[in-house]
């Protein structure tokens, strides 16, 4: 249980990191918070030639609330999403999901960018990003590009980041003042991986009908997805408990995972429907109550 040999680099700037990524390509791995990568190194599931520790790049630690977006540098620690009132005001769903990421010891170190780039199917922040139509800011030798979250996650542990690129920030649209959010996760124990989770954010019109809605699902396929059919069924409807329960059934067909030690396919389908239903109802309640700081 000791890391294998690697060449350790700790670039001081994004440009330097991108230069190293260009040089090493897939033979280098980026070390951010290390809450997944250090596990893989200690157990030697991975043996990179080079480790690029980006923790010294101070520009990646910045958090900015702009006129339209909350921009989180890739190195913003997850714990800050829980504790910084600016995050809770700007995008309350982020604060809500973060508590479910591992344990606080992991969140003290774990980063926003690391969670996105790791792209674990059970991860909460990628689901929040897909739900809220976040944008990934990626830097490479040719400069910066911006990619929609829903195009960024391409499979289990895979993203659209090229070997010579670095994820530098994630931009979340500011949550409208009248929006409500919900996040419900089922895991075996506190801090365990989600067997299923759903994030929802919606707005209601004056007649109490759903004016806009977004639902993201965790752990039901190999990457986070939107519950498009459920969203479509609820849009324009009054979200009564019955209507939400009926619409949530549509996610059953999206569950695409074989039985594993955590859950059978049948159980995961059941959970997917249940967490979707509960997350939407929580969002409805917050939208009705105007539960904003």
């Amino acid at each position, binding site marked *: 249980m000791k890391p294998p040999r690697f060449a*350790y680099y700790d670039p001081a700037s994004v440009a330097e990191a991108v230069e190293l990524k260009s040089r090493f390509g897939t033979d280098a791995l980026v070390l951010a918070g290390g809450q997944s990568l*250090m596990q893989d190194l200690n157990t030697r599931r991975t043996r990179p030639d080079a480790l690029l520790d980006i923790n010294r790049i101070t520009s990646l630690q910045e958090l900015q609330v702009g006129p339209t977006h909350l921009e989180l540098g890739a190195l913003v620690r997850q714990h800050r999403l829980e504790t910084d009132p600016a995050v809770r005001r700007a995008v309350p769903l982020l604060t809500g999901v973060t508590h479910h990421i591992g344990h606080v010891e992991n969140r003290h170190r774990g980063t926003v960018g690391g969670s996105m780039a790791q792209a674990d199917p059970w991860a909460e922040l990628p689901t929040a990003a897909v739900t809220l139509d976040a944008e990934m800011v990626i830097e490479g030798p040719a400069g910066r590009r911006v990619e929609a979250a829903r195009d960024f996650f391409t499979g289990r542990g895979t993203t659209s980041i090229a070997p010579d690129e670095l994820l530098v920030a994630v931009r979340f649209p500011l949550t409208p003042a009248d929006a409500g959010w919900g996040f419900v996760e089922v895991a075996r124990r506190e801090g365990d991986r989600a067997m299923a989770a759903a994030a929802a954010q919606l707005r209601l019109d004056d007649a109490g009908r759903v004016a806009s809605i977004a639902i993201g699902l965790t752990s039901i396929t190999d990457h986070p997805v939107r519950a498009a059919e459920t969203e479509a069924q609820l849009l324009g409807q009054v979200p009564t408990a019955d209507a939400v329960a009926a619409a949530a059934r549509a996610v059953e067909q999206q569950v695409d995972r074989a039985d594993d030690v955590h859950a059978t396919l049948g159980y995961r389908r059941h959970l997917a429907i249940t967490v979707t239903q509960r997350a939407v109802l929580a969002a409805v309640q917050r939208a009705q109550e105007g539960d904003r700081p």
Partner: protein
Amino acid sequence: MTTQAHMGADPTVQRVITARINGRDVTRAVDTRTTLADWLRDELDLVSVHLGCEHGVCGACTVLLDGQSVRACLLLAVQADGHDVETVESLSGDPNDLHPIQQAFHEEHGLQCGFCTPAMVLRTKEILEERRERTDEEVRQEISGILCRCTGYQNIVNAVQCAARKLYAGSPAPIASGTGTGGSTDPHPGA
């Protein structure tokens, strides 16, 4: 641990780092692949840093990095360069003059085999920095990142609450014992 010492000139393999360890600056050459947990335990002889799973699950190697609890097995020693690290050795080493948190674990029998105890004590120190009362249920959640394989959680929760009372004694903030599960204040539970 120092099999690559002869390669010390290569900074991708070995570095000289300075970290503040329990209040003292320590400068050493470290292999870049050495974890913080191994470095503290094997090189600095801080044997309170217990290695259980060595991949971030059990929490036995928890230390405070710049005041925040982290799993030392998921950090490289080189990453502690320029930072402040605290292990339980920073509390009292005198059995007759224990730190209030240590005293609370003693009084409440907040340990059985002791393997998770340094981590539990440091986590307790961290959460009690935030001077507020917690229910027993909240304490359970706060310590959920550290496994007690003896499953002696009830007495650990009691010890955390006892430590809070000791540390907050004389504080203007009201201190209540927990209202969640259990919450015995009996110094000899189960006796």
